């Protein structure tokens, strides 16, 4: 059962096709997580005590338990409270929720590194807080945490591999199906690894290019 390179090559096209599922889901998830994560950050900045206490528990749970368990809750346990979601919706909901927390936590770190000077100026000019958030804080914040967000995007892509447990046939599930009929789990996993590597490197590269261009236009 040595490593068969030809077999690896022969399965790559099918795995790449299956990766479209992961990419599509990841794109939706990242968009939602960014939006919700930003909203959560602004909400937390209001420092309403009961709200922040609840948020703290949610964050602790999301950070402290395996993502797979969170996906299971969304798909298998939520029907118990009357929320019966389709596999893709449940998967998107679970990973977005998870990623939202990580986005907000990255923002917390990013905020601390922002120079308060412009905010003071904006406040002195009489700008209202929503405007200050939208025009002053968030643009700086996104620029600062861009690398972290790109990293989060690659994590989301890897996370979509877990959706196979709730009937989403993605790269990993396709690889598993191949492995079980060819009895070659090693090659199929390496194939899946390559597909993930290519997708994530593409994301990192695109992110870096965008960042560089963004930085260039600012000079």
């Amino acid at each position: 059962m040595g490593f068969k390179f030809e077999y690896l090559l022969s399965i790559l096209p099918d795995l790449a096709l299956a990766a479209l599922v992961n990419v599509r889901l990841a794109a939706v998830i990242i968009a939602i997580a960014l939006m919700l994560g930003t909203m959560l950050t602004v909400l937390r900045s209001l420092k309403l005590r009961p709200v922040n206490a609840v948020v703290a528990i949610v964050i602790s749970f999301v950070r402290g338990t395996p993502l797979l368990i969170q996906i299971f809750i969304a798909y298998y346990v939520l029907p118990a409270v009357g929320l019966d979601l389709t596999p893709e919706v449940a998967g998107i909901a679970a990973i977005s929720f998870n990623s939202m927390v990580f986005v907000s936590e990255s923002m917390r770190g990013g905020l601390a590194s922002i120079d308060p000077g412009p905010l003071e100026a904006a406040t002195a000019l009489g700008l209202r807080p929503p405007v200050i958030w939208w025009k002053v804080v968030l643009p700086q914040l996104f620029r600062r945490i861009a690398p972290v967000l790109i990293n989060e995007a690659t994590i989301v892509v890897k996370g979509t591999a877990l959706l196979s447990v709730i009937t989403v046939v993605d790269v990993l599930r396709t690889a598993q199906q191949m492995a079980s009929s060819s009895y070659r789990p090693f090659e199929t996993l390496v194939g899946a690894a390559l597909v993930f590597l290519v997708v994530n490197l593409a994301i990192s590269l695109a992110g870096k290019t965008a960042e560089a261009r963004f930085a260039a236009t600012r000079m």
Partner: protein
Amino acid sequence: MSIINPSPVGRRTCSLLTGAVCVGLVFAWPAQAETTLEKIRRTGELTVGTEAAFPPFEFVKDGKIVGYGSDILAEVVKELGVKKLNQLDLPWQGILPGVLAGKFDFVATTVGINEERAKRYAYTMPIADGMPYAMKRKGDAITKIEDLNGKVVGTQLASSTEPVARALDAKLKAAGGPGFKELKLFTAFPESYVALANGEIDAVIQSLPSLAVLVKEKPDIFELAMPTSKDGGFTYLAWVTRPDDKELRDAISGVIRKMRDDGRLAALQEKWFGFAMTIPDEGYLPPGAM
């Protein structure tokens, strides 16, 4: 991110991190006005959960789920008058929570019968005899059960062959031998095959139908050693329904019985395994089963 074994998780593994229950969440399943069988008959639609990564029972070929189990399912669909079949493919760890949460009507994937499972799920009539067998590397000198003394033996974690392997170890020790050197439990059978091939372990214990096909596929690498004792396990393989769907279970069992009696089942066994099996009418369930 937390990836908990999205590996080719096999079959008899009882699920991996299945649904965790958020603390304080109360389970209150919606009361069902009609039974699952009535619903299937009314809508003409059937949804089943399958782990399509277990040849020759259920596996994917050219993008379609095929295999021994799929052929039987086709007959069941016909008999129940189902017009539309949704066959969901998911790893073993999602199968049992899925059926409990009502995500599909029953499990159309082969599940080994054992005592604990039988208390919580309703088994249909068996579709195959999963007689446990030992497999070795081609040419290794393991020909009788006693040869497993001092060997590293592997099987799947929480599978129906795990208790078989433990019982075998105990039996070897009771006979005065040293027993296995180690029992290694993998979360999926394919991994135990790789471990056997690369010398990590010396023998795999698994049910005969699966091993027979594997040995046929890889005659240069693997070889059947001998049947192991059935002690500690009920070796028949069947499908399961939710415990409150006995009606549905009986309907499926009826189809299987009919197929056995008119020889269709034996023909399918010849087609997929290369040999026919004896399927009993009773005695396949452990005491206290549904």
